[in-house]
């Protein structure tokens, strides 16, 4: 777990330790020489914090174990405390309070310095550990959302080429049969649809109005292909054009409805697209005529939409598809109602 933490962390870790040292020194504030000794210890400890910090960061970077860190830091801080005591004795000598170094008592009275250094090491280590854990979690979440994004992108792209080649094929057929006007009309519709999809900026969601515009451009192509055989209504309830829907969600459903439903009928077939509000939910329904037995197993478009809805809204969405008693194929989507302005 080699996550770099800012240098502000050891400074923040030193603050409570320093505060403790100052508070412990307060009762002796009236005795001048004690203040001098305390100040000396304090400054010496502060200076020791710099190599300690660098050492801890180095060990952290090399991913040492807690045990190994402790085994190194305990004797090291002890040695630092000894040096502090030595400095204290030399201060005593220079103030004329002592006549010489007393080596035997060097190890006595180390408690305040050593404990302070150990406390700093502990606070610092815990803070760094906690912060890097946080950052690692964040990276993981980002990686997951990137993966989800890539998957959604792939699912979305699955939709387009399929339809594009079908349309080109239809144009080619019109040219072969010398139906120039129809071929031209279809090319213009296809260009319309491409213009509409090419302006897309890569977001996974957009306004219902944009979705219906895309769908309309697509339907113009199918109308050119099927003519009178495709009967169509596209309706929406009041004030819904600004609500958020997944990008290119309706086109695969409608393409299914036409290719596997209406296009296989000999008589004209009806396709109804309806968007309504039900409280805080948006209901979208696509219904089409067709022959029941022929529709079974046509599921790429539907599976694609199902997956994308799940990725985007989790359990808050529902999609049902199947033949109803009226002899028509129904796809019904229920998803959270959210307005575009609220989430620009």
């Amino acid at each position, binding site marked *: 777990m080699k996550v770099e933490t800012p240098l502000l962390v050891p400074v923040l870790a030193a603050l409570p330790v320093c505060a403790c040292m100052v508070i412990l020194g307060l009762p002796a504030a009236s005795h001048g020489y004690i203040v001098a000794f305390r100040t000396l210890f304090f400054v010496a400890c502060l200076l020791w914090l710099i190599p300690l910090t660098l050492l801890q960061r180095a060990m952290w970077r090399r991913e040492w174990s807690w045990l190994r860190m402790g085994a190194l830091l305990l004797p090291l801080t002890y040695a630092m405390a000894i040096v502090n005591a030595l400095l204290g004795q030399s201060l005593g000598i220079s103030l004329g309070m002592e006549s010489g170094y007393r080596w035997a008592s060097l190890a006595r009275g180390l408690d305040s310095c050593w404990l302070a250094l150990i406390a700093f090491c502990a606070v610092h280590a815990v803070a760094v550990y906690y912060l890097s854990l946080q950052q690692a979690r964040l990276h993981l979440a980002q990686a997951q959302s990137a993966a989800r994004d890539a998957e959604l992108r792939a699912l979305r792209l699955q939709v387009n080429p399929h339809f594009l080649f079908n349309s080109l094929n239809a144009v080619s057929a019109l040219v072969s049969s010398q139906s120039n006007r129809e071929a031209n*009309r279809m090319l213009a519709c296809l260009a319309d649809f491409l*213009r*509409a999809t090419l302006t897309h900026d890569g977001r996974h969601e957009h306004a219902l109005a944009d979705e*219906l515009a895309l769908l*309309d451009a697509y339907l113009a192509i199918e109308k050119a292909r099927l*003519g*009178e055989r495709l009967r169509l209504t*596209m309706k929406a*309830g009041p*004030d819904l054009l600004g609500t958020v829907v997944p990008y290119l969600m309706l086109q695969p459903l409608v393409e299914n409805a036409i290719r596997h439903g209406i296009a296989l009928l000999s008589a004209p077939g009806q396709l109804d697209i309806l968007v309504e509000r039900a409280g805080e939910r948006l209901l979208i329904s696509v219904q089409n005529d067709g022959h029941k037995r022929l529709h079974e197993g046509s599921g790429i478009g539907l599976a694609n939409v199902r997956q994308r809805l799940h990725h985007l809204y989790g359990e808050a969405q529902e999609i049902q598809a199947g033949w109803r008693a009226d002899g028509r194929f129904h796809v019904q989507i229920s998803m959270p109602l959210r307005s575009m302005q609220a989430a620009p």
Partner: protein
Amino acid sequence: MNIRVVIIDDEPLARLAVEVRLARHGAFELVGQFGDGASASAGIAALKPDLVFVDVEMPGKSGLEVLAVLPPARRPMAILLTAYDSFALQAFELAALDYLLKPVDDERFDEALERARQAFPYRSGSRAPALAVPPALHFSVRAGSRTVLVPVAEVERIEADGDYATLHAGGKTWLMRESLHKLAMQLDPRQFHRVHRSSIVRLDMIAELRPLTNRDAMLRLRDGSVLRASRSYMPALSEALQQHAHFSTQQSTDL
């Protein structure tokens, strides 16, 4: 008196597409074709055409620049051609007659020529403008073997359906073998508006209008139907809606 036309486009096939379609119309005479902006400027000065088809994106001098350097009085009627539309606003600033997206749809092309034909008498100043046909009161449609008269006042919208047009009136639909732009000429322009290549709408049927990022718009009619209004018809439509008292003011205008 024919309308004299010049085509300016750097691609030969694109010029051919205009030339072939133009040849189907009697009142237009092609007097020149140019493949770049510089020769087009010289050509317009020399030939003084009445109408130019100009490609917007050309190497060197763009179509818009060719037009912009001409003084407004000497500027011919212009129909702009563009593959990827981001020039509509500039086109309207230059008072272009129309602009067509490539690949060009035959009906849209015919419509642009119709506009040119109607605008031409006003420009030349010599002839009185042709009298507009008085608006029709009924459409006669075939329903099986009988003929039904559908009052124009009941028509909510008309949609192009290949070579047919579908009338939507009072919840019913009627099929007519007539092109949309011929029907449009029989309708009162104060009540009915073309909103798209394939649809005409009665203005008081429009309940909501939401602009899209590409400057098209979606319309929601009083019966819940949603349809697209394309950007080339938007300026005229917005103007008409502002004058129209029945239009609710709840539309979003964050264009």
